[in-house]
């Protein structure tokens, strides 16, 4: 059964192609906001696609909803809020900044700072001048002078 579903899903890859709607917008800004939003909203029935790239029916419905909301004056943030209220955080590709995502957003920077600090401290710290064994130096000098004499 799993295999059947799996094959079916793979076949569905074919819907991995954009459906193009010719929506008309009042202003270039609204159009830009729309294009940006449908790239950040997720198609819930697809195998990892945004609303912009999917021709699934639900994706068309959600695009229409986005268009309607933006055209009547709602802000992109309000559209996102609307979608998240109904579908949860899953529907937006930009993870919201909250306690459960602090690690996600801040982790890499923290890691970078910590690593850079440790590495730079280690490199500075180990930059000691080489200790010279005076006895060995003297012996080496003698040997070299003797060789010069013998030449």
């Amino acid at each position: 059964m799993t295999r059947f579903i799996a094959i079916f899903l793979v076949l569905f890859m074919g819907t991995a192609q954009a459906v193009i709607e010719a929506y008309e917008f009042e202003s270039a800004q609204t159009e830009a906001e729309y294009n940006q939003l449908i790239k950040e909203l997720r198609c819930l029935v697809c195998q990892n696609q945004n609303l912009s790239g999917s021709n699934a029916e639900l994706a068309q419905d959600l695009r229409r909803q986005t268009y309607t909301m933006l055209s009547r004056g709602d802000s992109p943030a309000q559209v996102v809020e609307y979608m998240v209220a109904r579908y949860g955080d899953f529907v937006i590709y930009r993870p919201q900044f909250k306690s459960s995502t602090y690690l996600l957003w801040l982790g890499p920077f923290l890691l970078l700072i910590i690593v850079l600090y440790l590495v730079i401290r280690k490199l500075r710290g180990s930059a000691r001048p080489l200790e010279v064994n005076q006895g060995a130096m003297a012996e080496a000098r003698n040997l070299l002078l003797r060789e010069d004499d013998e030449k």
Partner: protein
Amino acid sequence: MIPEIGHFALILALCIALFQAVIPLAGASLGIQRWVAAAIPATLVQLLFLSLAYASLTWAFINNDFSVLYVARNSNSELPLIYQVSGVWGGHEGSLLLWALVLSLWSGAVALFSPNVPRVMRARVLGVLGLVSCGFLLFIIITSNPFERLIPAAAEGSDLNPLLQDIGMAIHPPMLYIGYVGFSVAFAFSIAALISGQVDSAWARWARPWTNIAWLFLTLGIALGSWWAYYELGWGGWWFWDPVENASFMPWLVGIALMHSLAITEKRGTFKAWTALLAIFAFSLSLLGTFLVRSGVLTSVHAFATDPARGIFILAFLAVVVGGSLVLYAWRAPLLRSAAQTRLLSRDGALLLNNIFLAVATTAILLGTLYPIAIDAMGGKISVGPPYFNLMFLVLTAPLGILIGIGMLIRWKGDDIKRLRGKMQLPAIAVLVVAFLISLALPQWIWSAYLGIVMALWIAVTAAIALFERFRNRKPMSALRSIPSGFYGMLLGHIGIAVFIIGITLTSLYNHEKDLRMAPGDSYSVAGYKFTFHGVQQFRVDNYVATRGEFSVSNESGDFQTSLYPEKRIYQVQKMPMTEAAIDAGFTRDLFIALGEPLGNKGAWAIRIYYKPFIRWIWLGAIIMALGGLFAAGDRRYKRHTTAVAVSAGMEKTG
């Protein structure tokens, strides 16, 4: 009959791989010469049988043997020959067989083309590769047998997914596999070094060419995938940070860090432990990628038939291989101490910083890719997509744009800040000014565009300076002859990045996209081009029926430039509608048109038009980088040095 032969050959290959793994490794540790000597023959015989198995499967495809389940699922008698051949790796089972074959080919290459590597080390390397082969072949035979029969045989196959019936998609997997399977060689070398406790850095020198070649193929494979997504999927994008894309990108990034780390280790004898660790990481990420794509643990457009049972097997394999390597590392790495010091203000330091940024960027991508699983495990659900990855990746790798330039001018071991400043001051100012002028010439001022151009120019200028430095105080001919191939590799690699940066910057910031309704006779103008729609026509080809639209493109003065013919196809067998965008490719811009749906009954259609400036530079940059990898691999210094070192290393350790 042939499929049975293939199946039998596969099982034999596993037995030999087992032999290849156990005997040489045991022989190396116990000092049994005959067992050590068995490594090469075992490797080659395994390759032979695996090739036979693969050939059998290909035969089944070409001869339309639909009594083989895998063939019935992925092929069709109407399928053009080239796609019957590429269809072999179009599904899970066949692509795994290709994975195993590529691994075997790499092992064979190491067996035949490493005369300068001491016998014992080579035996260990081949032994480790044999271990990995065992794992894969076991997995294939137990859970993913491509030779499974379908009884009764199907009258006709289900056809290869139309998305895969494309030349770019056809070559993309082999390139990728040659790439990240190739990292197994550096991995094997570092494991062999850890096992043997070899304190010197010779293994780094031996591993370099193999790593360069693997990396260059991975570069090409990723670029092919990106290019394919762009022209085939019709949404104008070329990278989505999909888990499977990330699965190939992470080894690529670590591969870059590895190549640079190998350079430091070979040259200065430092960072041996780090290099070993990076080699383990690079290959581990390749294996992780295999897990992610085939286990169903993440949702992805690329995912093969997913099956948690297979996922468990791969995870166990991953745990054993990587876990085992890291245990070995934890135990033996302390031996790999280096005497030399590293100063921050030196090429060593710059490369170290380079690797830190790359490693943190890779960690960010890994974090973003796996975070949804972690949140799911805690009862929530999130998506992490392009907005996260784009931001994190850009910020974490932007410093590299400047660092690359500094790295090419700064001296090994230690440099003087005054000397450096003197060298960089003038070029830096020149770059800032020229970039400013270029940015002014663009349609509008965007700060991030300026920064991107600054970075690209900085890299190009410092690369040129690095090249001229080689001619200073020397006769031109003798200077030219003294430049090693690896130096050109470095230059090309970095220039490739500069070209890549230009492509990304300009296409992301200055592209135009428009979805609109067009009836025959309508036109639309953007960026100095006028697109006029002339209606659609229907006709039939091969295994699909097409609706083709016609557009004529002219420039501002009305001169005809080109015609574009976007299509919508319906493939006969799978009845899937597919959009074939029409693209007018250019060095400085792409024009891209896709057909949507018919609107109304007056012949109007929904049309998507893109203007994409400099998008080809993205893949051009990748090709230049790959070329750099090729030059780096061909460096003759590897051959000269290895003879001397091989002799001494050989005398040092015989067990």
